[in-house]
């Protein structure tokens, strides 16, 4: 250590000591409890006391759960199915996509800000980081050798990525006409049967009336970023969608507003049957419930109703139509939906994967639990975010709470 550094340390420490006042045991009286009339009418319903006054977003610990502590033994699946570990120590594991050569790509959000590649190494998965320090890179898609990555601000493309996992190419920007807000700005992206890239722009708030040409919508663009069209409106925050394997119709999950009630409103599964349909936000929730602030003078009948109510605050996120060959016939054409589980509710539930069965006309027949067991003592052991049907027909499930990816397979 040079004398100069020693001098600086002495000086800094000295300054800190000089600044240290004799700490008088000063006590300011605590703030008086709020009077009810100080709460504006539109905030009524927000809990000020009782169990609801202790709700908060449920965080994942920054250190992922080690493989031997993962809740594998707790998870339940129907008879004949099996859940096993696919990859551990994938902190903040969110979106799932598979490359042509078998690489599984995993996105992340606030926690990690990374894109991972899971590479098969003799039956075990090696976790490679292929991009980091990204802004909320939740949206990924794989198409013709390229990995597309969507942040709240832009969409970029990593070409020939599977050949370059150890030395990823510089991304090519294809679209930057996104508002970039943080609230509900993170993406889920998918390329449709029409060859266009579908990208949502969520509401930049819990409940507000944002510019409908800019927010609360699903857009589609050509793969070079041109030709933007609005596909659906009145969408608060979709973090999962897929296209019907036969009709090509877009089905999407949508997360509804917070702070209204323990049991209202339900989160939704929606179906777009005509371009530009309006799904209700911020005026009408769950198809039949006018918003207590913004719903006055609006009729729920003027908006497209959800095809399925998926539970209050249950947070349905990633979803995929099952077209694989491994699972029993009854799952052909069914939708697997990952429900993250609520934070804006005192009683935790969901945190599961459900199977949604459709009628031949595209309406919903029923919803069944598929992978459960991740809620214990009103707390989460894991929280599913996305599902992915692998080429062999098995189903991957990402868990951003424990930081892992699981594989569900079936054997007669």
């Amino acid at each position, binding site marked *: 250590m040079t004398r100069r550094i020693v001098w600086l340390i002495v000086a800094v420490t000295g300054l800190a000591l000089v600044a240290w006042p004799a700490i008088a045991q*000063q*006590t300011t009286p605590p703030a008086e409890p709020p009077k009810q009339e100080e709460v504006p009418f539109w905030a009524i319903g*927000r809990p*000020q006391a009782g169990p609801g006054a202790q709700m908060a*977003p449920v965080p994942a610990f920054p250190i992922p759960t080690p493989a031997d502590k993962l809740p594998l033994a707790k998870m339940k699946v129907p008879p004949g199915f099996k859940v096993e570990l696919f990859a551990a120590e994938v902190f903040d594991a969110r979106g799932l996509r598979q490359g042509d050569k078998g690489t599984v790509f995993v996105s992340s959000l606030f926690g*990690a800000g990374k894109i991972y590649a899971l590479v098969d190494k003799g039956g075990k998965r090696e976790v490679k980081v292929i991009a980091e320090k990204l802004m909320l890179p939740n949206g990924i898609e794989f198409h013709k050798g390229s990995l597309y990555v969507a942040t709240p601000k832009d969409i970029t493309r990593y070409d020939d990525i599977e050949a370059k996992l150890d030395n990823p190419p510089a991304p090519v920007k294809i679209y930057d006409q996104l508002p*970039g807000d943080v*609230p509900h700005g*993170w993406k889920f992206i998918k390329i449709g049967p029409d060859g266009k890239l579908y990208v949502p722009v969520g509401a930049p*708030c819990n409940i507000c009336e944002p510019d409908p040409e800019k927010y609360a919508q699903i857009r589609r663009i050509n793969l070079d970023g041109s030709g933007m069209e609005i596909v659906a409106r009145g969408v608060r925050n979709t973090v999962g969608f897929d296209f019907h394997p036969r009709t090509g119709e877009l089905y999407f999950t949508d997360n509804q507003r917070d702070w209204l009630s323990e049991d209202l409103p339900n989160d939704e599964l929606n179906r777009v049957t005509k371009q530009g349909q309006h799904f209700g936000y911020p005026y009408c929730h769950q198809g039949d419930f006018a918003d207590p602030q913004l719903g006055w003078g609006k009729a729920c009948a003027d908006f497209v109703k959800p095809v399925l109510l998926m539970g209050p605050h249950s947070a349905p996120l990633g979803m995929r139509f099952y077209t694989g060959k491994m699972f029993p016939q009854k799952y052909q054409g069914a939708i697997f939906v990952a429900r993250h589980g609520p934070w804006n509710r005192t009683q935790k539930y969901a945190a599961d994967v459900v199977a949604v069965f459709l009628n031949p006309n595209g309406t919903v027949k029923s919803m069944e639990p598929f992978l459960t067991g991740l809620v214990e003592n009103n707390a989460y052991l894991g929280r599913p975010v996305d599902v992915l049907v692998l080429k062999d027909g098995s189903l991957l499930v990402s868990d951003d709470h424990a930081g892992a990816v699981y594989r569900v397979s079936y054997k007669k």
Partner: protein
Amino acid sequence: MRPLSARVVLLAALVLVAAGPAAAQSVDERFTVCLACHGADGQSRIPETPSLGGQPSFFVVAQLFLFREGRRDNPAMIAAAKGLTNGDLTAFAERVTKLPPPPAPEDPPDPARFARGRTLTLRHPCGVCHNPDFSGREQMPRLASQREDYLLKSMREYKSGARLGYGGAMSQELAGLSDQDLMDLAHFLSHLGGKF
């Protein structure tokens, strides 16, 4: 005491961090480096540098993690957190939680701004997450008697998106608030009295 300039603070922090190879020092020795800026009694006296006293362990681990990953824009803290192991994160957090919460400033608050700030905490139910007494829990920091300038800086960064946070709640709740709102919130929170 005259406030130190941000440049002096940064220089001092970098020098302290660089002063010794981390591996050769115990956690306690390295923790004294943190306290040189953040205050050995849990109370910071350096502008825009937070008091750590009374902060929840989870919050400290999460923020050190973000610094280690280079994901909060603060060169001094990124340098300080470089190379920390997961064990280090929890060891520092354990020590931080033992620091006493800082007392509120001796100067009384401006009554009108204090009242406006309090009303804002009800409209944007800050206390639902941060606790009704703003003592913080889990990933949500203690706000009561935090430095006013640091609270204001943090809220401005969340609102602009410069600071992404460890979740989306802050940017969502601050959307639509004016800068005057943020100043009144910081004024109210910083003047909440010591330990409740």
